[in-house]
């Protein structure tokens, strides 16, 4: 079945070159820093050296005295002129502006912006600005920040808690009471992020004649043009975001709204184009793009035969000093809160708490990967408690393929899957018996070695159902996406999408889908990115949604084009639609191939020969399709049940790790991943994103951390301290595909943009702990850095 579902397509699922690669390999991409606007000026920033302080005075005279320095902007002016940026939950007193006003709430927060002829000059000037601070009390530990009486990050809000609710889905207490065993554990997901190689950048230009702000940005953000306009007190149609800018990686974080409001305000105030391209320090410290920083307290109720009955999960998330959509990152996991397992009831208490640290932003998976790490660690603990094989325990509790659609306690229905087979495929790809032998041989030789297993879901199709779930005042129930298709007089096809891309290959996606439906060669199809004033509604490439939502919209639009071609042919040939057939763009009478209209003839009729058109059909040949997220459209129930996302991809990871006893350095000896994202539209793209997700997961598991000192200083401020895995840390990865088509999508596709990252940290952590098990110890916090592993080994050996 699975192989058959992937077959039967002309272009979908085939090995084909992408449309984007040629421009990237020749250095012909067009990134935001490549955009040169005549007369453009450059921004540099003055940032807070304190975790919390009152700003007493800012003196800019010496900066402004430099020739070529045009403006020093501070929060006093800016905050009066723009609307605050609000968090995604109902907390109106937690206001955020691009520049601090009166107080600073974390080290690195922007205090003043300098505009000068060159970036170098702007940096010189920034160094000449003097700020007097009165240091204030701060709070860094989220467990202290959550307590009554804590130092407050935003005193007007009255507490540091941005969001807290205890959901109970099903008879949790009864299930716990009935279970034969219970255990509790605490794990911590460290503060890391996606940290793309391109920092965030934005350029803006105000046209006073048209009263129009043009924006170019390395952006990946839903509702970005609307929110920019709202903050700048402009009508929505006075902001035009150019989406034909290549984004140098994002994976969720590139939500530079504060950057855009700052630069947009400056461009309008000064009358010339202004740009801000973050340097790496600005990106890591004040770019507000840190990821989840989460403490999980998990309780599991289970029986002696391995049946897991119920879960209680408390997730305390440190979002830093401000919040964009980050509290909602505790909401998305509601849609896969039991992972791939048949678990009868769940209690879930998400707590979003503020501290004096850099703000959190959306990160690949939107909170799902930390949750998967907690769940998978809990599964391993159950196995160890029962003395049961980890794989057998998973197989026992997996939802079976004959149980789909499967409704989980929190109200989401999983669409399809075959978890048993995918895990088996991953184990086969890793040669699991050989893996066990290798681990045991290493152990006999006195080395530390361990095997990690994880199995988890990738919710895909990017809906925003967590918004109404976490904020009853927000009744968002659509998260549509769209595509416009034009066939021009020459017969060439152009697909129009409505956001920028950050490496996901959307041009290839749209061309492949249009080519598939219209049976025209994708290589001949051009794909363009409309600017926001020309664009149809879109919610941008978030939540592993574009294969589903943009692919579905492109298919819908192409089918409308096809229907128009049929109508023209039926009219011209005087035939019933049912008597016609379509082949590679031509329409002919069934059984009489000579009575045929070619693609060119049909296009010519549509564009020139209105007299040959059927009545009721628009001239020209274009179609738009706006698609609501399948299964979407409903508000949550009173007890917080909701269909979160429509589609569920599945991945199973198997990894063998060896630890260098002298340095604590873990080496990933073997890595296999079984992956099922339904029908793959472009296998090369899916495999590339999956490998990239695993590499990112290796970083989160072993290396990457935004660490803070006790006085609130960010200690990882460069790539010398924040360690991104290189080709030497990332092993060769064996990916094995499986295909359980989704019943909700145009071709059976599911999402894959977050693949790999959702299960890799769990598997690697599990492998390291398997390696440490003979020492009788484990590490329950990520990242498990070589130093932490080495320290733990030393302590154990010293008898501590």
């Amino acid at each position, binding site marked *: 079945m699975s192989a058959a579902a992937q077959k039967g397509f002309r272009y979908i699922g085939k090995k084909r070159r992408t449309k984007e690669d040629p421009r990237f390999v020749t*250095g012909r991409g067009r990134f935001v820093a490549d955009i040169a606007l005549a007369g453009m000026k450059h921004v540099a920033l003055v940032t807070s050296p304190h975790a919390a302080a009152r700003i007493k005075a800012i003196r800019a005279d010496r900066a402004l005295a430099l020739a070529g320095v045009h403006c020093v902007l501070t929060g006093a002016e800016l905050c009066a002129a723009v609307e605050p940026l609000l968090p995604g939950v109902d907390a109106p007193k937690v206001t955020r502006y691009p520049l601090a006003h009166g107080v600073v709430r974390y080290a690195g927060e922007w205090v003043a912006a300098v505009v000068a002829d060159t970036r170098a000059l702007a940096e010189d000037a920034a160094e000449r600005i003097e700020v007097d601070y009165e240091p204030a009390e701060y709070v860094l530990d989220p467990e202290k920040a959550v307590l009554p009486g804590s130092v407050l990050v935003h005193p007007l809000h009255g507490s540091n808690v941005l969001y807290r609710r205890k959901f109970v889905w099903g008879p949790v207490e009864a299930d716990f009471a009935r279970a034969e065993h219970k255990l509790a554990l605490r794990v911590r997901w460290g503060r890391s992020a996606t940290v793309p190689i391109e920092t965030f950048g934005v350029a803006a230009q105000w046209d006073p004649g048209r009263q129009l702000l043009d924006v170019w940005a390395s952006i990946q953000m839903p509702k970005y043009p609307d929110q920019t306009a709202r903050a700048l007190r402009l009508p929505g149609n006075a902001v035009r975001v150019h989406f034909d800018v290549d984004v*140098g990686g994002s994976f969720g974080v590139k939500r530079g709204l504060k950057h855009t409001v700052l630069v947009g305000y400056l461009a309008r105030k000064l009358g010339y184009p202004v740009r801000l391209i973050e340097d790496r320090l600005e990106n890591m410290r004040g770019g507000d793009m840190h990821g989840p920083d989460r403490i999980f307290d998990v309780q599991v109720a289970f029986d002696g035969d391995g049946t897991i009955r119920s879960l209680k999960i408390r997730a305390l998330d440190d979002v830093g000093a401000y919040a964009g959509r980050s509290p909602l990152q505790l909401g998305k996991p509601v849609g896969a809160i039991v992972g791939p397992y048949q678990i009868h009831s769940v209690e879930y208490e998400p707590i979003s708490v503020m501290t004096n640290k850099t703000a959190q932003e959306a990160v690949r998976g939107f909170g799902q990967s930390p949750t998967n790490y907690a769940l998978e660690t809990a599964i391993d603990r159950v196995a160890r408690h029962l003395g049961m094989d980890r794989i057998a325990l998973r197989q026992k509790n997996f939802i079976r393929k004959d149980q789909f659609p499967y409704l989980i306690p929190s109200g989401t229905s999983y669409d399809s899957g075959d978890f048993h087979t995918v895990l088996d495929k991953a184990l086969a790809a890793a040669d699991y018996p050989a893996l066990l032998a290798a681990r045991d041989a290493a152990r006999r030789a006195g080395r530390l070695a361990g095997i990690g297993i994880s199995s988890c879901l990738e919710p895909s199709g990017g809906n925003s159902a967590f918004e109404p779930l976490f904020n009853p005042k927000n009744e968002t129930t659509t998260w549509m996406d769209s595509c416009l298709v034009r066939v021009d007089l020459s017969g060439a096809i152009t697909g129009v999408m409505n956001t920028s891309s950050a490496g996901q290959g959307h041009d290839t996606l749209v061309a492949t889908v249009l080519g598939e439906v219209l049976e025209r060669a994708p290589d001949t199809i051009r794909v363009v990115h409309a600017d926001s004033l020309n664009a149809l509604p879109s919610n941008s490439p978030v939540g592993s949604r574009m294969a589903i939502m943009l692919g579905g919209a492109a298919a819908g639009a192409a089918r409308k084009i096809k229907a128009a071609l049929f109508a023209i042919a039926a009219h011209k040939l005087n035939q019933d639609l049912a008597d016609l057939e379509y082949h590679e763009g031509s329409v002919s009478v069934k059984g009489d191939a000579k009575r045929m209209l070619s693609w060119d003839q049909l296009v010519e009729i549509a564009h020139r020969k209105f007299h040959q058109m059927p009545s009721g059909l628009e001239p020209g040949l274009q179609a738009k399709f706006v698609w609501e997220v399948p299964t979407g459209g409903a508000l949550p129930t009173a007890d917080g049940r909701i269909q979160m996302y429509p589609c569920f991809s599945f991945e199973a990871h198997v990894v063998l790790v060896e630890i260098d006893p002298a340095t604590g350095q873990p080496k990933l000896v073997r890595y296999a991943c079984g992956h099922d994202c339904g029908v793959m539209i472009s296998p090369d793209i899916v495999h590339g994103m999956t490998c990239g997700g*695993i590499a990112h997961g290796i970083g989160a598991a072993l290396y990457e951390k935004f660490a803070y000192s006790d006085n609130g200083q960010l200690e990882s401020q460069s*790539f010398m301290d924040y360690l991104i895995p290189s080709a030497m840390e*990332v092993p060769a990865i064996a990916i094995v595909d499986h295909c359980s088509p989704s019943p909700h999508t145009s071709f059976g596709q599911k999402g894959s943009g977050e693949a790999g990252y959702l299960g890799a940290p769990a598997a690697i952590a599990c492998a390291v702990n398997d390696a440490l098990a003979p020492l009788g110890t484990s590490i329950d916090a990520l990242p498990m850095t070589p130093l932490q592993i080495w320290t733990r080994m030393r302590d154990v050996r010293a008898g501590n």
Partner: protein
Amino acid sequence: MSEQLYPISIEVNGTLREALVPARLSLVDFLRDTLRLTGTHAGCEHGICGACSVLLDGEPVRSCLMYAVQADGRKLTTIEGLAQPDGTPGALQDAFCEAHATQCGFCTPGMVISAHALLETNPAPSEHEIREAIGGNLCRCTGYQQIVDAIKLAAAKREAPTP
């Protein structure tokens, strides 16, 4: 504040380029802003990510860690210089397309530069040698696998050029 300017003369992608530049202008800024060769990217500006890699007299270097004046009198090759004269991909770049070794494309120019330097000195590298050669180029999208595949493919094509 007017800065003193220094004359430099650099052969870039086979063309002699002359300019007056301040001493503190980095080579990457000179290439990008002065010459408008924007294929060379600034990712970290402290010599770790490798996105700004160029060939200096054939050797891969970080153009963010050099001043433009230090390249005076030298020969530079940037990513644009590895394409065919009409701007379409050269052989190594074509192998990157065949293996889909890019996603966002931001690290790609530096990767191609490092791979080119490797294959010039080691036409038949092992996987480990490939990984070592690109070990100073960070990529956040691909997990490196398709990049390694592309370099292997390019090496194989060098060994057996099509007639």
